């Protein structure tokens, strides 16, 4: 029995350990993807939509912003620059609030944008950090969708109030005002009206924290309408810490009310302002109370005060002057007479959502707009943009095949642009070119001509831009007999053919095709939508304030794709849930959506991706969030839509916006959702979230560059993000993942010979997009992290000589070791100063190389080719001549270094033996070999032999092609000087019998 118990014990411990070990090897995305990391290229020059600004109450250097789709950013330098601090969490932000009692450490973030435009994203709850942002914890209100305001009792940090605006697209009871009395551990709903009415603003009286004000708003959006206002919108006050609430409407308009912004004057909290959306035009506008909300008086109803309440209901009072009040708006405005009259704010990006006054002077102000953050130093007269906020909100991107390739895309309220994937010194604002106005969406590059197509909202304009001749033509399809009204989506689809370069498609309710770059159009389909008339009343949209911008256009085509394998196969997806396919170029169409099991009817078809390997195979993703459904939907068909299979499994979060299938391995798929990038290696059986420098940002479009295998993401809040060369993912499978170390196959590595000047002065506070490293990358997968014992890596040339020793990566997953394919710098003679040109590493010649990783007693080998750029015009013979010359100078440099080393040893001997004659001769000789005086800057001495050698080495090495005749002449001179110097050293050595008298290292030992 005893033995049995003992065995059972060991068995138990063993199995426990085993399961533990297995758990520890379960791969999350970061563990699998390892060094495969995203790089951000912006752009930031137009930035993106800001929802909220928050200033530190006492430290004027610190401020925060909550972006509509780009997360939370913190400035430590008074708003000159910002850094992101919330990348692991959902990036749609409603509000950022500092605990006034602990503003350095305790920060609350309410997620979910609150300016409820059509393209708004959503949040997933309330977050808190107690250590200044290093660690965040979700503390509830998971289904709140959008949080408008957070108030911490200025006398008691445990007491926190939260205004939940709530769901935009459907009923939800998690809205109203919530209170916590334990610092956010538990929550109690203390003001609730109904499932359609949320809280837009929440204020606390700084003198008496029991006094609270809350504005409630009844609102609803659908895919085809917006309704602001109702019987339930109201302004409330509590005088007992939120236990009881009463409406405070004395002096406010009768009837239905819409969105109301409220503000309190910190310098005199008796004074309140509210901006009101009302039934009657004359009742709308700004109201002021001087008695803590008991009575109200209308002050102003100018355009800027009443414009688009759902987008601009923010009023801010100067904390030092109760009569200075700012109103957000199309251009924004400011009153200095208590709200009676307003003047416009200084020039900045339109659509201003938040305003903040500095805590040190009211002339210093900050503005959050559709185009980033602006600063003013003179009370909003002149405004300047913050240049390092890459918050650009792409709806769509596309790529070309240039080197480097360009990224094309359109942005929310910021037009259409294209820019390069790399640029000397990094990708800067000046690298981006504007190719469209208004809101930008699809931007497509003609496949063979220097022509770009772009568009603005609702296809009001579609432009064909002749880049070479700088000519622009407007080409959107116009109505014609029989088709009086065309319905284009706000984000109208355009698509190119891969087989017919001049062909372009556009989608209204019909599919339009042009074979002549938009000069003429042919309709090649019937109405492919449901054509449901109940979803076509955009003229009445808006509720109490008419808002017919085209943003609610519905029953339209949203996505178009022509097969690369058969131009007659064309797919179309509509915003009202149809998935149509033609196999005969548009003569007949089949709606396949009924074949999708489990997809709710009318769910927006957001993207269709066609296989490049099989023309019957397609992928469709659907976005249900405009029907209050955040379920991810993605399906695959292999029979033209007769049957569809869901490829969503656990691990995918957020509504799906886009899918990209690999061109080589059809099981490798990339999914863009509202919460980031997800990758599957096995056709959707298991998905991993990609988190390596990749925020949880809405990923609206994904493109795969065929030449580079770069995965390029158009995000709606963090600009363009690139994951360079995803080809290793093609090799990850059951077998390779089980290998202890798996080297990935590599294409020949091209030696980068491009050179240019970057001239980046003046860009110190600008965002600069990262370039991909031009180093060679040796890639392998490690099954388990290497922590104990030595692991090293060497590169050998074809002769077996070791040319580089590298430090390999040790992490589980993909490791990428960068190798600069250069010989080590030559050993340079020791002088008084540095020879800066001596820091020259000759590039290794093209050839076959081998990387060997030694890990403990095991070694792993991988051979690869280093090649010259096949497109290079430099002849091979010139490269050989350069290589030979470089190595001659390199070897002379090292020989000189050895001679100087010996001379220094001889000098020691001369000094020790008090042989002043020898010492003088050696010093005289040495002074001709190396610099023996001066410094490394303007005190530099005249160059000597060392400098002449290394300067020539640097010049020949950094020049392309064979050495020039001028360089060869110089080499002749330097070579002669070198030989004379060597001879002189030998003579001195012989004359004074130094070889016998002074012990020196051998040349080989010296070099090593």
């Amino acid at each position, binding site marked *: 029995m005893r033995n049995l*118990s003992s065995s059972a014990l060991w068995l*138990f*411990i063993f199995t426990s350990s085993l399961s*533990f070990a297995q*758990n*520890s090897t379960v*791969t*999350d995305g*970061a*563990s*699998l993807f*390892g*060094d495969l*990391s995203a790089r951000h290229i912006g752009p930031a020059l137009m930035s993106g939509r800001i929802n909220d600004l928050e200033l530190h109450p006492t*430290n004027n*250097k610190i401020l925060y912003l909550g972006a509509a789709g780009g997360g939370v950013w*913190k400035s*430590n330098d008074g708003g000159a*620059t910002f*850094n992101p601090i919330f*990348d692991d969490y959902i990036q749609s932000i409603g509000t950022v609030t500092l605990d006034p009692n602990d503003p350095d450490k305790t920060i609350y973030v309410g997620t979910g944008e609150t300016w409820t435009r059509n393209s708004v994203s959503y949040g997933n709850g309330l977050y808190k950090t107690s*250590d200044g*942002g*290093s*660690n965040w914890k979700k503390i509830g209100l998971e289904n709140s969708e959008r949080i408008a305001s957070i108030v911490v009792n200025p006398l008691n940090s445990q007491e926190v109030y939260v205004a939940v605006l709530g769901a935009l697209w459907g009923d939800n009871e998690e809205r109203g005002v919530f209170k916590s009395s334990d610092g956010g551990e538990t929550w109690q709903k203390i003001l609730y009206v109904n499932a359609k009415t949320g809280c837009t603003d929440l204020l606390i009286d700084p003198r008496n924290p029991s006094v609270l004000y809350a504005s409630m708003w009844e609102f609803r959006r659908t895919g085809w309408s917006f309704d602001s206002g109702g019987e339930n919108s109201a302004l409330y006050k509590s005088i007992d810490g939120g236990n009881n609430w009463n409406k405070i409407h004395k002096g406010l308009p009768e009837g239905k009310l819409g969105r109301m912004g409220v503000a309190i004057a910190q310098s005199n909290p008796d004074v309140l302002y509210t901006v009101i959306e009302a039934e009657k035009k004359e009742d709308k506008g700004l109201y002021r109370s001087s008695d803590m909300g008991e009575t109200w008086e209308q002050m102003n109803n100018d355009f800027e005060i009443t414009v688009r309440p759902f987008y601009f209901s923010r009023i801010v009072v100067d904390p030092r002057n109760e009569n200075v009040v700012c109103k957000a708006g199309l251009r924004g405005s400011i009153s200095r007479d208590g709200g009676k009259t307003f003047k416009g704010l200084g020039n900045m990006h339109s659509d201003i959502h938040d305003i903040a006054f500095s805590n040190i002077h009211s002339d210093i102000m900050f503005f959050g707009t559709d185009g980033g953050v602006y600063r003013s130093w003179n009370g909003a007269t002149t405004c300047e943009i913050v240049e390092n906020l890459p918050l650009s909100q792409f709806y769509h991107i596309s790529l070309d095949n240039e080197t480097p390739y360009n990224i094309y895309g359109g942005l929310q309220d910021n037009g259409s642009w294209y820019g390069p994937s790399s640029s000397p010194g990094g990708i800067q604002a000046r690298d981006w070119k504007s190719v469209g106005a208004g809101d930008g969406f699809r931007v497509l590059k003609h496949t063979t001509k220097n022509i770009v197509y772009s568009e603005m909202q609702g296809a009001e304009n579609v432009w064909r831009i002749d880049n070479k001749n700088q000519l622009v033509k407007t080409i959107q399809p116009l109505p014609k007999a029989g088709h009086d009204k065309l319905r284009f989506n706000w984000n109208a689809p355009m698509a190119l053919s891969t087989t017919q370069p001049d062909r372009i498609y556009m989608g209204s309710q019909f599919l339009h095709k042009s074979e002549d770059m938009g000069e003429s159009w042919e309709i090649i389909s019937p109405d492919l939508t449901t054509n449901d008339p109940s979803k076509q009343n955009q003229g009445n949209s808006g509720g109490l304030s008419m808002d017919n911008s085209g943003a609610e256009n519905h029953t339209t085509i949203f996505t178009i794709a022509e097969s690369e394998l058969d131009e007659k196969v064309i797919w179309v997806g509509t915003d009202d849930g149809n998935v149509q396919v033609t196999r005969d170029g548009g003569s007949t169409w089949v709606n396949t959506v009924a074949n999708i099991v489990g997809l709710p009817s009318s769910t927006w078809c957001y993207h269709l991706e066609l296989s490049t390997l099989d023309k019957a195979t397609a992928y469709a993703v659907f976005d249900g969030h405009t029907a209050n459904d955040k379920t991810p939907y993605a399906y695959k068909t292999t029979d033209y839509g007769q049957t569809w299979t869901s490829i969503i499994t656990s691990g995918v979060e957020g509504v799906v916006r886009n899918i990209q299938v690999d061109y080589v391995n059809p099981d490798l798929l990339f999914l863009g959702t509202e919460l980031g990038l997800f990758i599957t290696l096995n056709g959707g059986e298991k998905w991993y979230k990609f988190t*390596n*420098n990749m925020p949880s940002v809405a990923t609206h479009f994904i493109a795969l560059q065929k030449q580079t295998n770069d995965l390029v993401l158009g995000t709606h809040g963090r600009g363009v993000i690139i994951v360079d060369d995803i080809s290793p993912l093609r090799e990850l499978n059951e077998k390779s993942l089980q290998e202890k170390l798996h080297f990935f196959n590599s294409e020949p590595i091209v030696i980068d010979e491009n050179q240019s000047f970057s001239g980046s002065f003046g860009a110190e506070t600008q965002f600069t997009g990262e370039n991909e490293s031009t180093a060679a990358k040796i890639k392998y997968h490690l099954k*388990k*992290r*290497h*922590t*104990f014992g*030595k*692991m090293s890596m060497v590169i050998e040339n074809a002769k077996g000589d070791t040319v580089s*020793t*590298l*430090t390999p*990566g*040790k*992490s*589980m*997953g993909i490791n990428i070791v960068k190798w*600069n394919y*250069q010989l*080590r710098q030559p050993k*340079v*003679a*020791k*002088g008084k*100063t*540095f*020879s800066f040109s*001596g*820091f020259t*590493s000759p590039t290794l010649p093209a050839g076959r190389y081998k990387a060997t990783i030694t890990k403990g007693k095991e070694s792993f080998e991988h051979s690869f080719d280093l090649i010259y750029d096949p497109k290079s015009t430099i002849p091979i013979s010139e490269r050989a001549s350069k290589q030979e010359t470089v190595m001659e100078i390199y070897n002379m440099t090292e020989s000189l*270094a050895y001679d100087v080393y010996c001379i220094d040893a001889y000098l020691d001997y001369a000094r020790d033996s008090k042989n002043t004659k020898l010492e003088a001769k050696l010093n005289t000789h040495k002074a001709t070999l190396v610099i023996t005086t001066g*410094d*490394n*800057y303007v*005190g530099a001495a005249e160059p000597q032999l060392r400098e002449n050698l290394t300067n020539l080495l640097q010049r020949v090495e950094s020049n392309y092609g064979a050495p020039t005749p001028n360089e060869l002449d110089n080499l002749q001179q330097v070579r002669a000087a070198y030989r004379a110097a060597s001879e002189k050293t030998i003579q001195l050595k012989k004359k004074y019998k130094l070889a016998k008298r002074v012990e020196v290292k051998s040349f080989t030992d010296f070099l090593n």
Partner: protein
Amino acid sequence: MPQKRFFTLIVLFLSCQVYFAQTKEEIIANYIENTGGAEAWNNLQGIKMTAKVSQGGMDIPIEMYTLKDGRQMTVITFQGKEIKQQVYDGKQLWSHNFMTMEAEESDAESAANFKLELNDFPNPFLDYEKKGYTVELMGNEIIEGTETFKIKLVQEPVTVEGEKEESISFYFFDTENFVPIAMQSEIKAGPAKGMIAETTFSDYQEVEGLYFPFSMSQGVKGKPGEPISMTAIVLNPKVDDAAFAFPEKK
């Protein structure tokens, strides 16, 4: 009897849970013990590390001296010339200027912050309570595919641009062997201020009974870092006192 057996099983199960649910004290004690033991660490008088830093395509040879009496020195050798950085002689913190190659004293704030680290030899976790540090177990986290314990270490406040700021770092201890494989801390100054710096540790090897990571990688969290690999670590090295002294101005 079946009941008793069931009870035994439950106790066994609970004890195994306890085994996995480590306390912060146990994690740190295991770490100290597994890397040589407190006594050996306390007896250590100094460390000389010879390393190769890869930066911008260049391999830079460096030597780093850290002594128990607080003295420190980093020596970079370029073209046979020694450039010293972050040298502390017990009084002053100084570095060579790269242009003149002459010694210059570090600014007062950097020196004051540097002096706060003097009691961290050879390891801030050794007798951390006596140093007044606080430690908190934040939970488990996967780092580079490895399950770790995340430990928050709070040291003496540092001064940043004239204002006191908490000095917080997070260490990630491998749950299998209790050695740290990563460390993260907020960057306090410069353009990257506010971002999270990350150093990873690997290639732990024994040197005279103590274990050191012979390979590190330094960078910003989420991005691949620049590697540093140790070629040799010498314990209790002989040093020339004059090498640390702030040179007299000529």
